[in-house]
């Protein structure tokens, strides 16, 4: 493919070809419910209605999107929160009858001119965290859903048998159909259903179908992801992008949904019916040119996707290695991006939605599977992205082919690479210390670097293995920590310090020990430790641009709000700061990429016809951010105790970690804590670790104090009714609930700052109930 300009029809992946009798498969379907709807033209980014499907009662109906809903929630994840809030109870858990799985689009979703405009936003109550989880994903489903007439699809209840839900934009029908004989694993069912529902036997027809599915491991694990397909006319395969975090694929399978299918009748560059299409084309072309001219000197997204981060993270001691014990490793160069560049197929427009010239969705075609049920077959592997490469280093797996194998099976089995990799890395560390062993792991030798054993665990999870370890391990780190502690196999504090989860969700792949702001970026979050809220490591650690607690709090206000905004609109964050204009460093705030922020202001206005400025964008996010935090409070979480993070993310847990960076830590004892060099020299390593431990824990609490204050919350992290009033949130039920919680906290003594403040230091406010003064 290197020579380029091979006609679309002639490119071949060399993958194993499957021959299914699609007609026969379809004949086995029984239509359980059918609903016809009127075609509605999308107007200025909104279809104007959402689709409700109940799998228990088989009810299908439409709900209107009101102007008030647009103003309060903007779209996308905001709509998801609103629909969920109206449908669940505080006691609702992931497998409750009333829990919903919602897939939303957003007003800018489906625009083809501006890179990164095809994201779907998924919202549900998560099995990992028992609170609201949002997960964004590429692929064609979101744009097509909107162009068939719906801003969101809301799935409630549970089916008794395996079904698919089909939204057919040609027939204008929504059906719930049994699908007894289709495959479950995603790379196969996506292909079967794409062929089944394409109107004609052409690649262009197949490109108008998108399938959402989750494979067999999603049925047994809490790591279930949803695979969103996007048919590639060159490779002739439905490729997959994942809504990875929080176990939403587990919810999909719990509802006995084998797949969702959407088929769009037609669409073009103005299907969103934007207010100003010329402006959109102008903005998009500026970005295409910027990517063309600068990407190769900046992130190399077009050649290796996010995998380019592996070497940068290794250089800065941020690449998680052996369960985050270290941030770099001598073998790491084996999995640097040039190794994957050699394997990736080149010169194919690799956007996960049309028009994304950032093209970070790389694949390895014709990959020969090495283990499990598809051993020997040749397949297309979507990825690996940086996070998946980071999982490799975290498990001490330094072979690109094994990382591809891990990537392929995570995807097709429907489990999140991040949660799976981070969790297995933790099990491996426990194995190394003898806290887990072969017997306790049901025969698996889960030592660092044993890729075979990691894959075997995944195959056993997918196969529904009922061995105790496999069952507990598949539920994630939090459950395994509890299991280890219950069995008295390890010291509770040590196990809790090592297990990299917060709120029940596994960490994504960055070492945060030396960046307090990034510890907050993982801990002081809505859904759990995922870097999509804030990525402040370089600003904090390398550039030292946010030295004070106040500075860090400001960053932990602005960036989570700004990044939330992408999810309200159906956008990808990458084109914002993974390519920047040449003049960016000359601007006042390069970290914000002001020129691109201005693009987004104009972008939203030219689709919706609104007249918003950059402050207005942040306000849109703040409303939804506070709403989601308030929902977490409503569900019994969303408080300081829930923003706890493991010490492994703050500092050295083991003597080995301390010793490996001894000079750095010793210097910090002098500089940050005020010990004399002489004192440090005379201290034992455990003593030094203890001092560092107390200091860093306190730093984190002080950071939480500053952030809560900046966000307009109480010292226990509860959004205040006063803040909600400022944001124009008028929901009486929510405001009363928050007031009640704040009053309870007052009685329980929880409205107190968490940090211990020394001489010359003070908390963000000395006034009790400071928020009551806010107008």
């Amino acid at each position, binding site marked *: 493919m290197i020579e380029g*300009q091979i006609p679309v029809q002639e490119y071949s992946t060399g993958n194993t070809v499957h021959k299914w009798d699609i007609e026969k498969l379809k004949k086995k379907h029984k239509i359980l419910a059918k609903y016809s709807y009127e075609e509605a033209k999308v107007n200025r980014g909104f279809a104007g209605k959402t689709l409700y499907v109940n799998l228990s009662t088989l009810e299908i109906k439409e709900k209107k999107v009101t102007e008030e809903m647009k103003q309060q929630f903007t779209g996308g994840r905001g709509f998801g929160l609103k629909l969920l809030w109206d449908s669940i109870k505080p006691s609702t858990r992931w497998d409750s009858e009333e829990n919903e799985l919602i897939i939303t689009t957003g007003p800018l979703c489906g625009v*083809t001119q501006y890179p990164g405009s095809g994201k779907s936003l998924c919202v549900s109550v998560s099995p990992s965290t028992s609170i609201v989880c949002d997960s964004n994903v590429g692929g064609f489903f979101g744009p097509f859903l909107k162009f068939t007439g719906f801003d969101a699809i809301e799935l409630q209840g549970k089916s008794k048998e395996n079904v698919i839900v089909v939204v057919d934009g040609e027939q204008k029908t929504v059906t719930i159909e049994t699908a007894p004989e289709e495959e479950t694993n995603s790379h196969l069912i996506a292909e079967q259903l794409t062929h089944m529902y394409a109107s004609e036997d052409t690649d262009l027809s197949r490109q108008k179908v998108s399938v959402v599915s989750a494979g067999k491991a999603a049925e047994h694990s809490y790591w279930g992801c949803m695979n969103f397909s996007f048919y590639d006319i*060159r490779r002739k395969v439905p490729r997959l992008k994942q809504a990875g975090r929080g176990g939403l694929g587990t919810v999909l399978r719990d509802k006995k949904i084998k797949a969702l299918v959407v088929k769009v009748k037609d669409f073009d*560059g103005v299907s969103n019916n934007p207010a100003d299409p010329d402006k959109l084309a102008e903005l*998009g072309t500026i970005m295409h040119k910027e990517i*063309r001219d600068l990407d190769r000197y900046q992130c190399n997204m077009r*050649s290796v996707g996010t995998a380019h981060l592996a070497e940068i993270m290794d250089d800065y001691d941020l690449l998680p290695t052996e369960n985050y014990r270290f941030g770099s490793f001598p073998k790491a160069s084996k999995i640097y991006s040039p190794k994957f560049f050699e394997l990736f197929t080149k*010169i194919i*427009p690799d956007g996960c939605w049309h028009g994304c010239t950032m093209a970070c969705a790389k694949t390895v075609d014709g990959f020969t599977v090495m283990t499990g049920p598809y051993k020997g077959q040749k397949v297309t592997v979507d990825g690996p992205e940086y996070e998946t490469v980071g999982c490799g280093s975290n498990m001490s797996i330094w072979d690109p082919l094994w990382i591809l194998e891990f990537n392929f099976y995570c995807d097709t089995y429907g489990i999140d690479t991040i949660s799976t990799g981070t969790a297995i890395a933790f099990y491996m560390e426990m194995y190394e210390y003898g806290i887990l062993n072969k017997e306790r792991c049901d025969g698996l030798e889960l030592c660092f670097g044993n890729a075979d054993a990691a894959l075997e665990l995944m195959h056993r999870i997918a196969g529904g293995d009922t061995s105790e370890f496999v069952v507990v391990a598949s539920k994630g780190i939090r459950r395994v920590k509890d299991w280890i502690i219950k069995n008295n196999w390890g010291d509770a504090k040590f196990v809790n310090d090592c297990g990299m989860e917060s709120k029940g969700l596994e960490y994504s792949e960055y070492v945060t020990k030396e960046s307090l702001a990034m510890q907050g970026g993982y801990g002081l979050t809505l859904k759990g430790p995922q870097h999509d809220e804030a990525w402040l490591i370089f600003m904090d650690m390398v550039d030292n641009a946010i030295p004070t607690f106040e500075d860090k709090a400001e960053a932990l206000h602005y960036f989570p709000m700004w990044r939330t905004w992408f999810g309200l609109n159906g956008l990808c964050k990458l084109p914002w700061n993974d390519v920047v204009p040449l003049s960016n460093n000359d601007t006042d705030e390069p970290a914000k990429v002001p020129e691109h922020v201005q693009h987004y202001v104009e972008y939203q206005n030219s689709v919706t016809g609104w007249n918003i400025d950059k402050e207005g964008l942040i306000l849109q996010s703040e409303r939804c951010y506070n709403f989601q935090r308030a929902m977490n409070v409503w569900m019994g979480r969303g408080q300081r105790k829930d923003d706890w993070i493991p010490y492994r993310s703050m500092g050295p847990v083991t003597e080995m970690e301390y010793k490996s960076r001894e000079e750095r830590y010793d210097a910090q004892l002098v500089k940050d804590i005020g010990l004399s060099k002489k004192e440090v020299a005379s201290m034992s390593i455990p003593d030094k670790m203890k001092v560092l431990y107390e200091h860093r824990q306190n730093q984190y609490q002080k950071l939480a104090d500053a952030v809560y204050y900046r966000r307009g919350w109480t010292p226990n992290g509860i959004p205040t009714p006063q803040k909600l009033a400022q944001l124009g949130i008028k929901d009486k039920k929510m405001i009363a609930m928050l007031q009640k919680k704040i009053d309870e906290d007052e009685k329980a003594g929880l409205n107190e700052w968490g940090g211990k403040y020394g001489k010359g230091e003070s908390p963000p406010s000395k006034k009790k109930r400071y928020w009551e003064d806010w107008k």
Partner: protein
Amino acid sequence: MSEAKTVKILKFDSEKCKGCLECEKACSKIHFKTDEGKEKSAIRIIKSNKKYKMDVCNQCGLCIDMCPVGALQRKKNGVVWLDKKICIGCQACVGFCPLAAMRKASAQIEPFKCISCGSCVRACPEKALELVEVEVKNIKEIVYYKQGG
């Protein structure tokens, strides 16, 4: 389609051109059924330093590999052709064109380009334009894909 060995591309004689823009008018007639020329013409004549220069597609085909829906193809006669029925208006080809010769007019979201039809050649009163046959392999460009600057 891929077998095309040669393609006709436009050649311009700046000595002969007097800047009447009849070529642009003829071109916009082909693409938009109007003789407005300018942004509705695939060929543009630009005055620089008292001389005229031509700005038009050279059929290099770099855009072919940029199109996510396969709307751009090299036809049997070697010309790079945009199928408007398939195009979804993403402007990736516009942004990546090395000559900025893939154009977008406000009349429609889909871009347009020179198809070597020769109507500009016929319209030029000074005979400043001609279509010349070149080998595809000599003009072919592919999109940058390597890692690093």
